[in-house]
């Protein structure tokens, strides 16, 4: 049984599906639900991050069902909405997603999708009522729908690309730096001679998803990409590489070597690339040393974020920057088995520091943990602003929701992301340190 949540930062399955869909160019979500479902998504996700609606506002197609449809069923309303969406909205693919009310009423979405297909509409669907799960589950449902239903829709074959690698598991908006993180992971993969298939973000549309089965490897950045990777392994025999978390700084070398090994790449080229990138990052760190000691970087920190981010950032903060992990709070509610493995990964990372590792998506519980932890630096979301102020710790906004922080294409992944992270952390600590 699920519990109530105080100040939840994780929205529902429908919204998670919309987050994925909005990150694929040319895909138009067709919401079959109440008028407010799409608006809640816009307010509680796009706006909570202060940047990021590709349509310039709330979702552009929603059946807005009324009382009549709740009583008599809303399938005919969906039929009409789908047909007209294709006439009104520009798009390559129309993606039906459902809300709670139409699912409770029992509208037959596969049948409506099939009807659309019979008329040669490019349409797929996912059943995404909020009562079936949270935002991450919605991401998984939408990815699965694309993987399972696109092959029936796009039959023509494309010329194969050598060394194609899919990147899965970065949930748009829940990772506010998703676009920048993907770009950097792509740059790293290119650096060792591969062709990244990043699937989301600027210039990435249905084509990339069409190519998903061709890949020689799936890189899975978080637990939320695992279901899709397993499905692809089962269907197409594509192996996958599960990362412990987002690779930030030197952890990128581990990822590149592992990928290189799996695909039998030229180790010399990989090592050369890693060496060049690491040299550059070390140089940045050396230049930062003066500020580091002057502003007292080395302090206890608390980190609140999604699992991949907590692993990646705490690894960099602890293993590279020498800060002291006090409290790590994971907010994306992973499955029990995943929790156990995350605890293991984090225990290996922080074992000598007496760090508390906790799982919570409840704002008041998180505030309580930060209050008792009394770290000298908080990395978290806008929801941590009040408690950070209360305990007198500077706050770096790194996780969803960012609130009044605008992020366009910066990220924390890779070597360049580590430099970005240093810029932000350094600026914050200098601005808040009591310098003489």
């Amino acid at each position, binding site marked *: 049984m699920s519990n109530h949540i105080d100040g939840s930062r994780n929205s529902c399955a429908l919204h998670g599906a919309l987050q994925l869909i909005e990150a694929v160019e040319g895909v138009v979500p067709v919401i079959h639900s109440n008028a407010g479902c799409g608006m809640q998504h816009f307010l509680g996700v796009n706006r909570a991050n202060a940047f990021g609606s590709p349509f310039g506002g709330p979702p552009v197609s929603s059946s807005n069902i009324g009382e009549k449809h709740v009583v008599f069923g809303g399938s005919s309303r969906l039929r009409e909405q789908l047909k*007209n969406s294709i006439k009104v909205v520009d798009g390559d693919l129309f993606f039906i997603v459902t809300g709670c009310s139409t699912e409770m009423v029992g509208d037959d979405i596969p049948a409506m999708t099939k009807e659309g297909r019979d008329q040669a509409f490019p349409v797929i669907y996912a059943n995404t009522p*909020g009562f079936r799960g949270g935002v991450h589950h919605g991401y998984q449902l939408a990815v699965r729908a694309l993987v399972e239903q696109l092959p029936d829709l796009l039959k023509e074959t494309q010329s194969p690309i050598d060394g194609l690698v899919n990147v899965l598991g970065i949930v748009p908006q829940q990772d506010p730096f998703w676009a920048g993180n993907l770009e950097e992971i792509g740059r790293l993969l290119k650096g060792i001679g591969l062709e990244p298939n990043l699937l989301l973000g600027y210039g990435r549309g249905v084509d990339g998803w069409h190519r998903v089965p061709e890949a020689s490897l799936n890189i899975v950045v978080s637990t939320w990409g695992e279901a899709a990777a397993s499905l692809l392994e089962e269907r197409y025999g594509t192996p996958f590489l599960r990362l412990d978390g987002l690779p930030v700084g030197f952890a990128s070398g581990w990822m590149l070597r592992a990928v290189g090994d799996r695909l039998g790449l030229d180790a010399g080229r990989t090592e050369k690339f890693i060496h060049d990138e690491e040299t550059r990052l070390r140089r940045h760190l050396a230049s930062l040393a003066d500020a580091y000691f002057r502003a007292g970087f080395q302090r206890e920190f608390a980190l609140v974020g999604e699992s991949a981010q907590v692993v990646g950032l705490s690894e960099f903060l602890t293993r590279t920057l020498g800060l002291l992990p006090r409290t790590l709070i994971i907010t994306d509610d992973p499955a029990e088995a995943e929790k156990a493995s995350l605890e293991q990964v984090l225990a290996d990372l922080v074992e000598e520091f007496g760090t508390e590792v906790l799982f919570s998506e409840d704002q008041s519980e998180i505030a309580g943990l930060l209050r008792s932890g009394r770290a000298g630096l908080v990395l978290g979301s806008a929801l941590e602003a009040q408690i950070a102020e209360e305990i007198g710790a500077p706050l770096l906004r790194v996780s969803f929701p960012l609130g009044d922080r605008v992020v366009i294409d910066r990220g924390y992944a890779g070597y360049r992301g580590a430099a970005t992270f240093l810029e932000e952390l350094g600026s914050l600590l200098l601005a808040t340190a009591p310098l003489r």
Partner: protein
Amino acid sequence: MSLLKSKAPRIREKRLDTLNAWLGSAEAAKQEFTGEETVQRIRTFSQSSEDDLIYALKLLAGVRESVVIVHAPRGCGAAELCHKVTSGNGRWIVTNLDQKDTIMGADRKLRKAAESAYREYRPEVIFIVSSPVAAINNDDIQTVVEELQEELELPIVPVYVTGFASRNAVTGFDTALHSILKHLAGTSGEVERNSSVNLLSVVEHPDDRVEAERILELFGVGLNLLPDGASTATFRLAAGARFSFTLDQDSGNYLGVMLRDEYGVPYVKQSRPVGLGATGRWLAAAGRALGQEEAATAYHVQESERVRRALGDFSLAGLRVYLALPPATAFAVADLVGEFGGEVAGITVGHLGELQVSELESFSDRYPTVQFHVGDGQAFEELNIVRRLAPDLYIGDGAHIGQVARLGIPLVSLENQPVLGYAGVTALVRRIAAALKNRAFTETLAGLRTPYRDEWLRRSPNWHIKKEVK
């Protein structure tokens, strides 16, 4: 029988013949309401828009020392996250209904959430906001409320919004206000008469509230501002006040009417104080009600002189302005545009009903042939209309303003913009002047495609609006 006995008020469609889809000339819009019968319209294509649940959450986030429990799957509280991170308002808990709850009901979960809210925050009041799932499932919220009320000894206020019963989001204001009065204002027998005056302010900009209070200081009366920033005590006081005065006779209507009909507090209706003329009329109405008309007139002369000096030679002469706003603000801003010598090129209001008839009449007298559009968040229709009209300025407050920006027209958003009273005129004029002075941003966006197909943009904008067949 007291109207407050019911769980929720009748929806705007039924109570005030309110439409949320309509397109035609202003003259025809007037006929729709002054003729025999107002016919509801529906859309055969629609876009996401606000609903009663979101409006209720917006309103309740402004009530002091309260906690909101959203009795729903977790997505129905997403708007609360926005209120929290953009304005710091609101404490909310979502009951996080899952599949099993949709079959078995979830009153135990609701009870636990309320108990936890009480322990954690010791609020003055807990609101329980219903949702599509709770409504369809017919969850017994009432019994839980009665039990909790005894156990926790604080008011627990159920707000029965559904997300689907009304197409007009403003119904959510009515529903929240209905519940507040029913549970927080006391019964009419218990009311103690007092000398204060109610100022009805429903989800207004904080600066607008400050300005209204500043202006009304002139009369030297105690003001109860509600529901924005009110505490539970404010509502009890309001039920015994001398009279109620409003900042928006659409959103505040239900509160004003119920305080009048249920508690005998006279309701002074007046158009929004937007622009110098309307602010003067608004102030005069308050002065009349308090027997201080002369003081009001003198104050208005002095203040408007000050504002005119500050505005210098600002003028909208020769400019055609498109308005896309909630009805009360739209008509008020239309007057302001006229005051500065501009012309309304076309208008979109979120909804239109009986409450707007007199304003609609004056509007259509002045602009009989202007295109009149009713739709909330229906950007596809708006873009179609605005593109054809090619106005010199667009003033709106919708979440889709980023789409409109792609038309390359100078644009002002009122979503986070004070507009009321003398300070409002100055602030709004500054924004408009800036938008007209440097058009670089929207011109930069003008090259981008809108989300719509050219076929749609060439089609008649009323294509998807049909008369409802009952």
